[in-house]
């Protein structure tokens, strides 16, 4: 579960967004929506979603937020990363039938896990549509990559690229059976309300252990209980969590 990743390549895919491709020590199949807990920054690990896996190559896409992600962004080929994972439970792609109409909705840096998800769904013969929301034209990434997998709509808050507005501006809830989403809390909150039968949301939470032991990442459930983002999630049914 602990392994050393070796950086293969690094490139900037949008303003402040970096794509890092690494070699896995233990090549494996990974369900989409899971994450790796990377040892960067002074102390705690950083959870980063798996944006793509190809046998022994793993891709991360991340935004520079603070010291940890800045450190990740400064890595060069042959540098190594102490990684824990894959962790968590991803999107339930095995439960989705090719007949179901699936929409993947990503907001900003919530987009990455949806890429591997759409890849695996398409590989299983499921037709997917993607709606990707960004702030502005310069922050858009992976549009062509998604387009190669299926219908893709990009929205920008300021209208500088694609549809103007939030992702919901491009969402026609009646057209989908399944929604898979990842993005900022306000986006997930509004998606929670959409009249789509099956809704799965990948949520973010500050983590300690990443494996379910420390109770740092709990999220309340409607029944007053709680789930742990790291080990019960990060993907939950929309009805399971109070955002």
């Amino acid at each position, binding site marked *: 579960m602990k392994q050393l990743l070796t950086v293969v390549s690094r490139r900037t895919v949008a303003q402040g967004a970096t794509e890092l491709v690494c070699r896995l020590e233990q090549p494996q199949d990974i369900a989409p929506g899971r994450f790796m807990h990377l*040892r960067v920054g*002074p102390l*705690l690990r950083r959870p980063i979603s798996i944006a793509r896996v190809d046998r022994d190559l793993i891709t991360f896409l991340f935004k520079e937020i603070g010291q940890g992600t800045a450190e990740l962004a400064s890595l060069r080929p042959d540098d190594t990363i102490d990684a824990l994972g894959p962790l968590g439970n991803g999107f339930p792609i095995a439960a989705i039938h090719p007949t179901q109409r699936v929409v993947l909705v990503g907001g900003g840096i919530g987009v990455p896990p949806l890429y591997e998800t759409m890849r695996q769904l398409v590989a299983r013969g499921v037709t997917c549509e993607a709606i990707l929301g960004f702030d502005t034209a310069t922050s858009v990434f992976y549009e062509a990559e998604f387009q190669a997998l299926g219908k893709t709509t990009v929205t920008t808050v300021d209208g500088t690229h694609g549809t103007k507005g939030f992702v919901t501006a491009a969402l026609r809830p009646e057209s989908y059976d399944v929604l898979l989403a990842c993005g900022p809390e306000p986006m997930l909150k509004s998606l929670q309300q959409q009249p789509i039968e099956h809704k799965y949301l990948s949520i973010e939470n500050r983590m300690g252990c990443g494996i*379910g032991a420390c109770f740092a990442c*709990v999220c309340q459930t409607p029944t007053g209980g709680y789930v742990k983002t790291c080990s019960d999630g990060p993907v939950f049914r929309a009805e399971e969590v109070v955002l």
Partner: protein
Amino acid sequence: MTERLRVELPGLSLKNPIMPASGCFGFGEEYAKLYDLSELGAIMIKAATGEERYGNPTPRVAESGMGMLNAIGLQNPGVDGILTNKMPFLETFDTAIIANVAGSTPEEYELVAEKMSQHPGIHALELNISCPNVKSGGIQFGTDPSLAAELTRRVKRVSTKPVYVKLSPNVTSIVEMARAVEAAGADGLTMINTLVGMRIDVRTGQPILANRIGGLSGPSIKPVAIRMIHDVAQAVSIPIIGMGGVMEVDDVLEMIYAGASAVAVGTANFVNPYICQELIQQLPERMDELGIDHILDIRGKAYESTLHRA
């Protein structure tokens, strides 16, 4: 396991001096997937209260330098939940279990302590009078020597197992606290709990933690822990389980030189989930390098040689 690492403490016959600290290892379930918990000297399980508690709102953790702030807020399944659902699993391992006892009132502490101490799988209690993350209870007991002593006395009365009192570093004189609980019957001390701290998010101007304040742990607090263990070890005759910022095998040795008889590892489990296992494996080799025969041969040597010199 070699006998060079064996440590005998009240109620605890430890095959080695390394144990995960309370709250940083849950109830062992997650770590048991990574290695055999029977390798551990002991396990300090997460704090128990009388009833199940949800704890504080999130965010519950923040980072700062080489430290971590947490404000979990004693989330736990309650003493009955722990005894029923967590102990059976823990009992399958050949290691000592230390139950961390918390509460808001002396009565709650007594209730939890009594129930915990009666469970045959629990070897000792750790009286948590120093949790900075709960509004009522917890830290007041940990900063006032007479309240701490009184609580220790009450818990000792109901407990059938040795009671270790966990000291808070957020005091003017930790030696005074230590002496007070020793006099009240504590069988041992565990120290230190976290330092109270805060981080502010400059984008919002508000504290990062929903609870505003949190407990600082990790390497940042190690020098404070070492100094407090060093001072307390000279002032009391009950044993100390040391903790605070241990990340490497040399940190373990530092704590024992300072006067600890065993060492707990908290935050480091989040950085490296295999850390306790690794420390246990590395200890004998490092002891060889430094010419240390038995781990307790160095206990308190940081001040003992001063005493000789004086």
